[in-house]
């Protein structure tokens, strides 16, 4: 073996070592605020919503609340699991999540502190947790996404039970591990009762529905023409078409009013019980319900507002929330996920 061999390897290892020590000295590397204010007033937000969607909104939040804000982005499910693991030692002040189930689970574990009445006042009553531990910040409707080339308008389902028709066999996509699907099944249980829900799910499973990784994957499959239709949330279409030409992206939203298929779910926020800065955290939640924030969410993400009087200024093909007449479900009850999981296991859909 030659000296050169080793020197090449050692040189590389040396370079890596230098880099590593630099990283260690820097503490954490690029882009991190070096120091929080001395009184520890920096606010930590765990955001289960994507930085690309809500990053600019949270920048505005920092300005509005007047304290330094650090945001950790992640998936709602994983972040909720992390918060549950952290428990009373969590460094988080605010949890900003994608769906009611996660918020309900955190609330159920006693990890969310009740919000003062004036903070949640702007939101309509049905968008607040009954124990005030969290509040919805935007609403999203379940829709059937479909490819108009494959599914004529006349064939679109008018209710849940239309999907049990033989013509849908193997032609419907769903995302079994996705929180919004689980919320939908929970809603189904609340509306039709345990037996009714099991009955429908058993029949649905017999339809051989196709499993997907997530709503985005379903939409892509529909747009590509490999899947006729799928069960998703309404706003994914707007995320997709913000990057690709909507004319070439052949997926359309079909709203199903007065039916569990048209269930409305929410994204929401709460103050973490372990927070030592609850006052600023409450102001942050209050900001999310402000007209400025609501307008942003409606315009940038294509979601529905939770306060009266906000309307989208952008041209979305969005059915008015009122026209959906969603079934009457208490959002807080959407956290009874374990029974949902058990039922899905039973019918073989998980």
């Amino acid at each position, binding site marked *: *073996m*030659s*000296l050169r061999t*080793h020197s090449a390897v050692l040189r590389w290892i040396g370079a890596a070592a230098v880099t590593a020590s630099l990283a260690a000295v820097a503490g954490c590397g690029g882009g991190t605020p070096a120091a929080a204010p001395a009184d520890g007033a920096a606010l930590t937000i765990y955001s289960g919503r994507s930085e690309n969607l809500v990053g600019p909104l949270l920048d505005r939040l920092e300005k509005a609340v007047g304290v330094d804000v650090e945001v950790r982005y992640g998936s709602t499910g994983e972040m909720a699991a992390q918060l549950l693991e952290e428990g009373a030692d969590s460094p988080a002040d605010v949890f900003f999540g994608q769906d009611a189930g996660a918020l309900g689970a955190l609330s159920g574990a006693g990890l969310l502190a009740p919000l003062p009445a004036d903070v949640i006042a702007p939101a309509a009553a049905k968008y607040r947790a009954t124990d005030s531990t969290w509040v919805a910040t935007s609403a999203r409707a379940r829709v059937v996404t479909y490819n108009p080339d494959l599914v004529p308008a006349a064939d679109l389902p008018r209710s849940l039970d239309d999907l049990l028709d033989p013509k849908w066999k193997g032609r419907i996509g769903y995302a079994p591990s996705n929180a919004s699907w689980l919320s939908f099944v929970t809603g189904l249980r609340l509306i039709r009762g345990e037996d009714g829900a099991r009955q429908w799910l058993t029949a649905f499973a017999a339809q051989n529905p196709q499993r997907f990784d997530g709503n985005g994957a379903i939409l892509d499959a529909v747009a590509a023409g490999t899947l006729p239709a799928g069960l998703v949330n309404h706003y994914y279409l707007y995320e997709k078409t913000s990057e690709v030409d909507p004319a070439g992206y052949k997926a359309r939203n079909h709203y199903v009013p007065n039916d569990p298929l048209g269930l409305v779910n929410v994204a929401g926020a709460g103050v973490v019980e372990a927070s030592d800065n609850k006052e600023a955290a409450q102001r942050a939640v209050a900001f999310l319900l402000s007209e400025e924030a609501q307008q942003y969410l409606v315009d940038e993400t294509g979601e529905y507002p939770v306060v009266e009087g906000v309307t989208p200024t952008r041209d979305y093909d969005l059915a008015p929330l009122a026209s959906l007449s969603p079934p009457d479900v208490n959002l807080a009850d959407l956290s009874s996920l374990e029974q949902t999981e058990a039922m899905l296991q039973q019918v073989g859909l998980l």
Partner: protein
Amino acid sequence: MTGTEAALRITGLTAGYPGTQVLHGVDLEVPTGALAAVLGGSGCGKTTLLRAIAGFHPVDGGSVHLAGRLVAGDGVDLPPERRRVGLVPQEGALFGHLNVARNVGFGLDRAGRRSGRVEEMLELVGLAGYGKRMPSELSGGQQQRVALARALAPAPALVLLDEPFTALDAGLRAEVREQVRAALRAAGATAVLVTHDQQEALGAADVVAVLRDGRVVQAGPPREVYSTPADVGVGEFVGEAVVLPATVSRGRATTVLGTLPVPGVADGVGQVLLRPEQLRLDGAGTSGVGATVVEVVFHGHDTTVLLDLDGRTVRCRTMDAGGLRVGQRTEVRVDGSARFFAS
């Protein structure tokens, strides 16, 4: 520790592996400044012995003293790094990632490396000025000498050489062996050479110890071991031998080669051992026993002749076999005395 103490003294050494004993009570003493050869065939335990001396193999019984200091046995087991034993493995085994000078200085402390000891050692092995080379730039023989310089540099109590010449070309072997011997002499080092090669052992060592089945069966100066082996086995192992059945009566042994002098031996039946060079051929003579030439193998400086003596084949080595042809009748005569071993 006294100046007259042997550099290495091994007493009743036993060692082995779980379930197998390899060394069955080895006794060996090497005087200071001597080069001893441990000679043995494969499986005789010579590698285990060497590793036990160096401290890489645990000792089950007996003891090892180095320069009067107990290093193994009686509850003592010094780690290798505290035994002051220099090791020259087969094939040199230089540190490929270090140059020659740093290889030689590997066992020296900082002061030692700066004292000129490295250059001194390289000069000793005839490689002055090679310090900056990498091992891969040296020939096999040079690598071997660097390995020796490395072992000698910390002035060890003992240098162990593990078959150090077997990997070298035949032509190079004798030359390197001489250089190594000279370097060991010049350094005044005591050394133990482990080998299976009789020529190497007889040619290089001051003392030869023959190891068989985990025991030293004979130890002494090379000439003595060669000419007066302890038994037939040793005799056959240390060199070519002619072994013949014999009956001794009043100091003379009767064999197919006639009656041979065996001074001081009691009467009895057994074998005699002769060296091939003791046999003299005389194509025209009448002074010896008649034989037929079966095969002639020419070596350059001498010749091996196979003879048939009434159905018994005998090997004979002669400097003068110019006229011999296969099938020819010749007379055989024995020079000197034979070694007799009663059965």
